[in-house]
């Protein structure tokens, strides 16, 4: 049972502050995913929780106990690395049992525990192999085995699936989700892949530039992003951003007729529309008219990239798999105004 609490956590490397005061409460048994672009501080934060990096300031508390200065080994955490970090000179069994061997558990106990863990991860036939005789997915399962054998309070995952190919990534994602269901342990998971974040998380923490931009459930972040950064980061394909101008009570979107400003949106400088909130219509009743630049067919759905005169970048629209739309054709687009997001100059949602 483990609650994790970060209070005003800070980290500097020399004069460069990389973590700028984090506050976060993680509930017992919760699966929390840290997402953000490279260099946003998500991995550094995870490593501070692990104790591999010292916090410059602030407090990390585990079940109310301050562990900020506690050795990693005494924090009751386990960590799974992107590189798997398996010992190449040890068999699968020795890799999984490494922690127990260090603590000089008797041999029978170690063998029994390793067998149990191997069984749950379907590693039993591989126990005598060396890591280099395993596939990427098998290696990562061994790394997870080494983590779960210790019954830690908190599991930390540092981009564990980044080195796997796409198909295996989906499979391992499901295995990790199942593992969380079965163990009910607190898990903190770092990724830059927002699909992993959306599918695995109870709550997502969006990082940017050493700060937390927003914390919420996946759908919460998707439907109600707090700012332009979160709106643009969560969701694939990404949200479309259209520059807008408010002059004399009227709203101008390039390529559209000026309309009255909706109440409360007077400060808007940008409009955000998700690809699925743009409907294709006959040109006469459309909000925007443009030419299809490119079509991407994914089978179940199709993405169209549409060039609209006056807009700085193409608009992405999401269409059903079977669509009549062809490249170079002219189409009209209708914005679902009820789902559109308005951003002010600072990027905040209005």
């Amino acid at each position, binding site marked *: 049972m483990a609650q994790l609490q970060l209070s005003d956590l800070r980290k500097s490397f020399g004069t460069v502050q990389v973590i700028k005061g984090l506050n976060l409460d993680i509930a017992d048994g919760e699966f929390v995913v840290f997402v953000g672009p490279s260099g946003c501080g998500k991995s550094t934060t995870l490593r501070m929780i*692990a*104790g*591999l990096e010292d916090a410059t300031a602030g407090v990390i508390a585990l079940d109310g106990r301050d562990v900020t200065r506690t*050795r*990693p*080994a*005494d924090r009751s*955490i*386990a*960590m799974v*690395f992107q*590189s798997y*970090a398996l*010992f*190449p*000179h040890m068999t699968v069994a020795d890799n999984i049992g*490494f*922690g127990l*061997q*260090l*603590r000089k558990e008797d041999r029978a106990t170690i063998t029994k525990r390793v067998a149990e863990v191997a069984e749950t991860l379907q590693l039993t036939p591989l126990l005598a192999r*060396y890591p*280099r005789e395993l596939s990427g997915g098998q290696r990562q399962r061994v790394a997870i085995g*080494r983590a779960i054998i*210790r019954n830690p309070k908190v599991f930390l995952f540092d981009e564990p699936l980044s080195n796997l190919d796409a198909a295996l990534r989906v499979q391992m994602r499901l295995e990790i989700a199942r593992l969380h269901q079965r163990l009910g342990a607190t898990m903190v998971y770092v990724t830059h892949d927002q699909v992993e974040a959306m599918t695995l998380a109870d709550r997502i923490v969006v990082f940017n530039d050493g700060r937390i931009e927003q914390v919420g459930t996946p759908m919460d972040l998707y439907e109600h992003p707090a700012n332009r950064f979160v709106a643009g980061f969560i969701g694939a394909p990404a949200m479309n951003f259209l520059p807008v101008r408010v002059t004399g009570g009227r709203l101008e979107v390039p390529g559209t007729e000026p309309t009255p400003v909706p109440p409360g949106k007077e400060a808007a400088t940008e409009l955000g529309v998700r690809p699925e909130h743009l409907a294709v219509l006959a040109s006469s009743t459309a909000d925007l008219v443009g030419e299809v630049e490119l079509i991407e067919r994914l089978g179940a759905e199709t993405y169209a990239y549409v060039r609209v005169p006056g807009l700085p970048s193409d608009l992405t629209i999401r269409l059903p798999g079977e669509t009549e739309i062809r490249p170079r054709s002219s189409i009209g687009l209708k914005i679902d105004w009820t789902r559109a997001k308005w951003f002010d100059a600072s990027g905040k949602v209005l």
Partner: protein
Amino acid sequence: MEQHNRFWRIALLSLPLAVFGLFVVWPLFSSFYYSFTNWNGFDPDYSFVGFDNFAKIATDRLFLQAAINTTIWMVAAIVLPTALGLMLALLLDSRVTGARVFKSIFYLPICLSAVIVGQIWTWIYQPDWGLLNTIIAQVSGEKFKYAWLAKPDSALWSVIVAWSWQQTGLSMVIYLAGLTAIPGDLLEVCEIEGASPWQRFRRVVLPLLAPSTVVVIALSVINSLKGFDILYIMTGGGPFNSSDTLAMHMYNESFKKYLMGYGSAISVVLFLIALAIIGLYFRQLRKVDRIYG
């Protein structure tokens, strides 16, 4: 095109192969040949003596002495520089101030030829004014005149110390490279799992240095087998054959006593010993290969 390539391949290989044949293969087979003769090294007349030379080896007291010395020499010349090199590498790998300066200093002796190293250490061991005895005398406050290289008890070990002083730098450099190749996250796993410094060294760092150890030991074996010049300079195998090695014994029999046939027989035995060591080494290498690729 294929024909053309083959011509150049053979043409370019022929020179090194000719050199290798002339200076390695030919002498090797000549030794085998002469080991069955009583040739004295210059006389055109000699006769075949069958296995007489090898029978003589079996009863040669000096050969036995040389074989024992060679064993001591090889074990010490492998173990000491390897262990010392590893210790220095571990010390200098952590962020000690001036580590780079120390690395250079410890590496320097390897740049000297064995003849120069032998000469330097002969001076250090000099009984009357050598550095070692001077320091001992200063520290103990009494006169100290021990002749390190002239006493059968200490001659061989004194050379081994000089040899280790020279070779340690090489092992250190190879181990330093090996240490940088250990992935940082493996050491972090040790931290998270709570390994003590000794457990980390014994169970993770040392096994992960196995590829470096293979190289260090290979070089030590090769260098120690070749370690003739430093013994020749410092003791010449003496006193009373106390630092005589097989290579030295072979040299003395062949070129000092003009028993080229007998010397060749000794060299054949030495060759077979080297072959056995290399065979063992390759077997070990395959094991390391399975793990590290």
